């Protein structure tokens, strides 16, 4: 589903940072991959390269067989197939919850308003906030907002979902409800790449864990491998700090 080969990304402003260094990995359809690593190790940049919010400097990225770095690719079409959930939710504050979930369906997928509304209501029910459909995002708790953001991404019927620290901005008591929604999604067979510090989630749901440091993939393995006998010193150090 996702094929990343030898991707490099360097930021030159404000200072030169090698955010991604020779990153290669594959994610199969239906697989859940959790990306962990210290702050500034390039996890967000890796995720953002997958839907071209960030343009990789070199290398290749295929999403469902489409070479997204090719000049001939319509990137908007690719992005419609790749859902993304952000740490800071990024809901549209001027739209109601329902409108947040219908907007891109109508504008991008060209669905009729009634079809989009029906789809949205189904998804809001699935993430447990159907009774807030008419509210504005500011009137919702963080956990509720993040679940709306998940519904908004799912409304496009994506083939892949990317999560960039979806629970990091949440109060502890709200983390569970968001993780539950993500677990349900994983059970349904959604292909997911999740950047998170929630090791419980990784242990329970991940098929594979990727550890990144200084822009490079240092270690890849099953959750069992990671939590029982990690091989690299840097992985051990990181895990000892967060566990």
């Amino acid at each position, binding site marked *: 589903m996702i094929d990343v080969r030898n991707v490099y990304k360097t930021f030159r402003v404000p200072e030169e940072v090698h955010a991604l260094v020779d990153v290669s990995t594959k994610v199969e359809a239906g697989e859940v991959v959790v990306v962990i690593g210290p702050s500034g190790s390039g996890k967000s940049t890796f995720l953002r390269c997958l*839907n071209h*919010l960030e343009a990789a400097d070199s290398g290749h990225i295929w999403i469902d067989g489409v070479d997204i770095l090719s000049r001939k690719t319509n990137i*908007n*079409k690719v*992005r*419609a*197939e*790749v*859902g*993304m959930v*952000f740490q*800071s939710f*990024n*809901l*549209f*504050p*001027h739209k109601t919850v329902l409108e947040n979930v219908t*907007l*891109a369906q109508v*504008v*991008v*997928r060209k669905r009729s308003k009634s079809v989009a509304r029906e789809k949205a209501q189904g998804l809001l029910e699935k993430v447990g906030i159907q009774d807030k459909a008419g509210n*504005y995002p*500011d*009137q919702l708790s963080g956990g509720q907002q993040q679940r709306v*953001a998940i519904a*908004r*991404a799912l409304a*496009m019927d994506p083939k892949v979902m990317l999560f960039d620290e979806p629970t990091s901005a949440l109060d502890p008591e709200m983390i569970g409800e968001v993780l539950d929604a993500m677990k349900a999604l994983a059970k349904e067979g959604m292909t997911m790449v999740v950047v998170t510090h929630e090791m419980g989630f990784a242990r329970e749901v991940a098929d594979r864990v990727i550890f990144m440091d200084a822009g490079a993939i240092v270690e890849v393995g099953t959750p069992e491998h990671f939590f029982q006998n990690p091989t690299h010193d840097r992985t051990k150090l990181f895990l000892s700090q967060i566990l």
Partner: protein
Amino acid sequence: MNGSALAGYRSKANYYMWIGIFFALIGGIILMLYLATRQIDYVWRWYSMPRYFAHEAEIEIPAQVLGTVESITPEGKGAVIRVAEEDTDNVESYSVPDRKEIRVDDGDFVYPGDVLAIYRKWRPGLLAQGMWITLKVSLYAIVFGIAIGLLGGIARISSNPAAKWASITYVELIRGSPLLVQIFIWYFVLATLINQLLLKWGIPEISALWYGVASLAFFAGAYVTEIVRAGIQSIHRGQIEASRSLGMNAAQCMWYVILPQALRRILPPLAGQFITLIKDSSLLGIIAIRELTKATREGITTSLQPYEFWFTCAILYLILTFTLSMFVQWLERRTATP
């Protein structure tokens, strides 16, 4: 508000005393102005002002031929007067709107030009006409100014150097010279040029009013460009990323996500800009557009009542600008999310 304003005063009576002093102050200034004008024998004639807003005009219906009034037939409130022309079979008929104002009788002999009847009709006065032109010019200029400002603002933040530099050049050019000079350029340079070209191609020429509108719209547009740019840049980057990650293209993201949020934020500075525009439209009198200020000056020439006219003129501008700011406040409330 009121509570906190009251808090600093020992008593309610004290508070109202100061309100009384405020009105006494205003009244005192008006009285002093009045007494001063008495010293120079200025005669205030406010009673003659209403007719500059609307007056009843008398319109005469003259006979076109030499002949005899053959018949006067009532018709609704009016009547039809028939005049048989002398020495021919020709009978002319005239519709008269008001039967009470007929000035001839059956059988009267009339000459061409004799008044058969008159009627009265309300006509807008000089100041009403001037205010209408000011309103019209301002509204057109505001609409075009918004369009120009939106395009300019979007171009300004574009990564395309042609669009970006065009926007910067436009803003700097407009903001760097006086509006008066720009009005002259529009009227004496661009208007002559364009109208002569149009004449050459056989297209009717464009009136001064539209060059006035253009000068105001392009002037305000430069400031609106800066306001729009600031408004767009004030929207969090995450909004762009969220909409683009859903597959929206740049235009869809701008139209459905960024602009609605930015517009709400820029309404207050936009209102200020357009209030300035309404006041600036008073300069258009110099290119023969009879807006409110020019109408006022014409009124003074014929009436010799400068004091009444200038005060009235100022109040009329105040009404226009106040209405606009009320409208924008209403818009702000209406577009606010709870």
